[in-house]
């Protein structure tokens, strides 16, 4: 099986500072792959480089084709959708308009059906469709960001820190939904600081340390390994 996403020696520099030193990994179709690591390890940078938001060197292949240098808006059309850190909801628009933007690239007749599907997934959003997105709570904004990304019907969904700043109970809900989305057939590349939760939903995990891959393998094996337990899961 060809991987859905293949990253080969990807490097990114912010000015003179190198943020990624040639990392490589693969995401297979249908799986949840997670990138874990500390602050500044280069997790978000990796996602930004993949979706074309920042310049990078090295090779990124999506569904077998190279997507290096392809602009972010074209990638959305091809089925690669990036749900950015900090949610990126449009606070100047209503929840409903935000969802419309998610389906911006689509012209098919299935949009109302998909909208119904994500509103079933996030009933809270249905109650607030007319409300301005800026007035939602952090958790609701996160739900909106994920719902909006799903409306693009991505083959691959890049999720950046979906649990950031959320109450523990909400974190549970969000991860439950991530699992559900995956079971409905969307491949997910998940960036998380909450390694504990991430390793529970993921099939495959990549550990980043200061811009390089420190470890990678099946999520279960990594969750059991001593190094990961010590550094990221807080078990002595």
């Amino acid at each position, binding site marked *: 099986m060809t991987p859905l996403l293949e990253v080969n020696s990807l490097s990114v520099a912010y000015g003179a500072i190198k943020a990624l030193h040639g990392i490589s990994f693969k995401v297979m179709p249908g799986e949840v792959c997670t990138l874990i690591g500390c602050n500044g390890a280069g997790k978000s940078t990796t996602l930004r480089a993949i979706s074309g*938001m920042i310049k990078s060197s090295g090779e990124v292949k999506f569904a077998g084709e190279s997507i290096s240098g392809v602009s*972010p*808006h074209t990638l*959305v059309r091809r089925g690669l959708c990036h749900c*950015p850190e900090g949610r*990126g909801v*449009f606070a*100047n628009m209503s929840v409903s308009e935000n969802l419309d*933007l998610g389906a*911006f690239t689509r012209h098919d007749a299935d949009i109302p059906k998909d909208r119904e599907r994500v509103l079933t997934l996030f009933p809270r959003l249905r109650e607030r469709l007319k409300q301005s997105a800026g007035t939602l709570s952090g958790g609701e904004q996160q739900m909106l960001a994920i719902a909006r990304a799903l409306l693009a019907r991505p083959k691959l969904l890049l999720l950046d820190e979906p649990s950031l700043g959320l109450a523990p109970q909400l974190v549970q809900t969000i991860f439950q939904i991530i699992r559900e989305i995956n079971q409905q057939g969307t491949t997910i590349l998940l960036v998380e600081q909450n390694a504990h939760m991430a390793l529970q939903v993921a099939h495959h995990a990549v550990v980043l340390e200061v811009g390089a891959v420190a470890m990678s393998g099946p999520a279960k094996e990594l969750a059991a390994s001593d190094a990961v337990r010590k550094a990221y899961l807080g078990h002595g």
Partner: protein
Amino acid sequence: MTDLLQTLVTTIALGSLYALIALGYTMVYGVLKFINFAHSDIVVLGAWTSLVFAGWFAVGEGAGAAAPWWTGGIVLAMAMLTCGVLGFTIERLAYKPLRKAPRLNVLITAIGISLLLQNSGQSLIFGPRPKPMPPLITDRPLATIALPDWDVNLAWYWLLLIVAAIAAPFMVAKAKWAARIPKWAYVAGPAAVIAGVLLLNTTDGGGQRQDVKILWVDIAIVLTAILLMVALQFLVYGTKLGQAMRAVSFNIPNAALMGINVNFVISFTFVLGSMLGAAGGFLYAIKYPLVSQTADAGWVLLGLTAFVAAVVGGIGSIRGAMLGGFLISAVQQFGIWGVKQMGYDNAPALKDLYVFAVLIFVLLVKPEGLLGRPTREKV
């Protein structure tokens, strides 16, 4: 009375013109967060290209002579098209390479483009002398309203009272006890004061009956401006492209992640703003038919007045620009009227003073403008 009503007519006509021009400033600020100082020169070119195109349709000189009514529409469309293309070119060549540069660099580039347009227009294309705009619209009035010969005579302290009545709600709204005042009082209170002052100061004008004239030109200006603004409102709030424009204006990288072609949307916004500016130039030229040369200081002030309208309405806000246009025009025209009432004959020469006084006032009391959204500097 006559003066007052004539001032009102002028206010509405000029207000719609300022609003059109202000829209260009506010839209570009909305997507790119810089003040396009070359916008006033697009307005000038709108006026001059209208003059050139109107020359093709000209039908002799003389009182009341004018081309058929639809030529105005064609000239307007041609001027808008030309300026749209120009706006597109300017954005591509001058601003796009600076997309990631600090905003100050873009601002300086805009001033450079402005000077380039002014001087090439003056010395290469249109010449250094003012030219008359061929008549496109009859100079006969649509309606003449005869009024009783009352006259309002205000002394400066009465005028001060009016200004205070308008300013008071803005001041009071900040106080802690403001919540106890009913909302309608904010409008009704000042309105009552102004009406009272006018009533108290109305005198017999001395038997000179004067007429209020509503010119066809004014009607054309208001109708064209309203038509364009309604169309813009529909485009921005009723279409997918408009939604993309609003997304880009909120956050460019995130808009791109929605699959929006950001470069296209920015170019489109520029073209749209330039076309509205061209319409403003066209309307200005039919209202004031002696078109000044492109580097004339009067144009700069016209642009600045519209810019003040955009800031007062809330820069970045489309509805704010429309509101600001009418508001600034009212301040300007009623300022002229009021100062004239006080017996100062040179009142029109001070018209920009009133406008910038309002700018300073708004920046002090509500810096984000009337309909703008407040921005917080994050530290």
